[in-house]
């Protein structure tokens, strides 16, 4: 009897374990289904404007107002694309913007990560003041400083050195105009004051905070200097943060309109995209809004395409870094 009872209990336990396994499995399936539905819905909301761009930019202009067409046009055309490329003087603007984006981003990452590391790991005098200034750069609306900044670049005096030379030049300061020169976009990045640099520095600070100090201490014991530690130990271990910030910074430089329109309007892609409507009106003397709409949407597509491609390549670098850092747990 007793043995039978024991057996029964054992069976019950096994049953329970089986049940829990089954329910866990079905839970996982249920979650996967929910996740798929949710992600499809959100993706649709995000993709809607892109689909609209695609639909508009390959549609012939006489089909624009056709009520029988919602998404897929009856015939496809490349005319809108070609016109967008022409009106944006694409070759020139895209090379210029690509150079500014690449050089600006790399310089910004370099100088901002140095600053972020200095701010998060070292406790020197005046650090509090610098932190307050950092937050001020993040929250200051750029509209507030753009006009004085424009004047700085119009009469660029090489960090006041040109003005110090004034007595030797008969009282006239040595200045150069950097407006419409890519240097006006790149130079602030070199000094970690480019587009949203404050935010980049702050992001680096937060990521450095999350990093264990044991690595640096070990490097110090091995007789590694501060800068050598930084380039040999910290940088390689910060790859996820660097890739993330690289992506942000790249996008901010690529899509920037505000600074480009002020400092470098002639050869900037975003300014050119903004001016497509005016260019059409100037070129064809026609003000057909549908035409403008189609070419502008095509321009948007061309504008987004390069940066999206670069992102798809960079995405592979979003790898797990902790496994490689040698410190776990």
């Amino acid at each position: 009897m007793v043995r039978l009872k024991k057996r029964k209990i054992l069976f019950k336990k096994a049953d329970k374990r089986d049940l829990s396994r089954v329910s866990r499995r079905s839970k996982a399936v249920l979650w996967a289904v929910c996740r798929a539905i949710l992600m499809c819905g959100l993706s649709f909301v995000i993709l809607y404007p892109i689909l609209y761009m695609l639909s508009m930019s390959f549609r012939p202009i006489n089909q624009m107002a056709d009520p029988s067409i919602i998404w897929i046009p009856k015939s496809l055309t490349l005319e809108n694309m070609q016109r967008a490329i022409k009106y944006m003087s694409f070759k020139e603007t895209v090379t210029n913007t690509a150079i500014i984006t690449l050089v600006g981003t790399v310089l910004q990452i370099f100088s901002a990560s140095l600053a972020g590391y200095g701010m998060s790991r070292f406790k020197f005098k005046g650090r509090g003041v610098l932190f307050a200034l950092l937050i001020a750069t993040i929250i200051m609306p750029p509209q507030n400083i753009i006009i004085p900044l424009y004047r700085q670049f119009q009469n660029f005096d090489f960090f006041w050195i040109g003005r110090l030379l004034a007595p030797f030049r008969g009282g006239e300061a040595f200045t150069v105009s950097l407006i419409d020169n890519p240097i006006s976009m790149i130079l602030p990045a070199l000094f970690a004051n480019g587009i949203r640099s404050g935010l980049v520095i702050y992001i680096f600070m937060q990521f450095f905070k999350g990093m264990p100090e044991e690595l640096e201490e070990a490097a110090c014991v091995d007789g590694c200097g501060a800068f050598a530690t930084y380039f040999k130990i910290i940088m390689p271990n910060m790859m996820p943060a660097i890739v993330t910030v690289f992506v942000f910074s790249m996008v901010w430089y690529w899509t920037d309109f505000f600074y480009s329109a002020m400092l470098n309007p002639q050869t900037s892609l975003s300014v050119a995209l903004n001016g497509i409507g005016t260019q059409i009106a100037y070129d064809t003397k026609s003000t057909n809004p549908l035409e403008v709409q189609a070419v502008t949407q095509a321009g948007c597509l061309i504008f987004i395409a390069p940066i999206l491609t670069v992102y798809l390549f960079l995405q592979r670098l979003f790898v797990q870094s902790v496994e490689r850092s040698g410190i776990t747990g």
Partner: protein
Amino acid sequence: MAKKKKFKSYYRRKEYIGIWFVLPWVIGLAYFFIYPIVFSIVNSFCQMDVTPAGYSFSFVGAKYYKNVLFIDQRNLPNILSSIGNLLYNVPMVLIFSLFVAVILNQKFKGRILLRAIFFLPIITTGGVVMKIITGDGVAQSMMNGTGGTAIFQVTSMEEMLLNSGIPQEITTFIFQFINNIFGLIWKSGIQILLLLAGLQTISPAMYEAASIDGATGWEKFWKITLPTLYPVLSLALVYTVIDSFVDTTNPVMNTIISSAQSLNFGNSSALCWVYFTVIALVVGIVFLIINKASKNR
């Protein structure tokens, strides 16, 4: 013993080495930030006239500040409403982006495609593309939930919920969420990517150890994911607060931009400084909360 001594000197050396690390940034800060803002402060107290010879300034005292604060009736309510917007905007954006980031960090088919899709909002927000998208009539009606032909119209459901006795505050919160789902997704692009990067710095070994100890997914989320994510989460919080203040669709920012465009730099600078002070106060409070929470942890 020798090891200890070396550490001590290392930490003392640290103090001035730090200055070398921040030096390029400090030079840039002086030239590209402090000098312009001093000019902007001067501007807000002076009348600037463009003359053939250049610019001329004449001191007018606090005239522009009086203009902005007391004579122009729109500004104060606008500033207050942008603070009020924070209260539901920030939690919504943060919860939503954390949720999406956790999902995107899971292993499933098609996640690379999804990550690319969730990257799109970062490219478009704030730039020319967003202006074009929102300027386009057809696309616009899609985005404004309150617009005439919106597909996310849910007023009748809201009434139903209200009639069934759910407090109005909760239903308004829920329906703010549903109505603004488009804006919400487009606003949280950067936060999602930040949190995703933060999630990837968490070692999988921690989760393995926790599951061996019998922790459920829910417990793992609260005990491992959230505490480790804390620095990045506070970064996302600060970013969200600032972003909702300096967003160009914000009415105060609109006034600043439009008065600068009509060459009324005095008014524009004065309003900018008033607004900046408000933002600084709010961000200061946020920092206090973050610091307190991290000490309690």
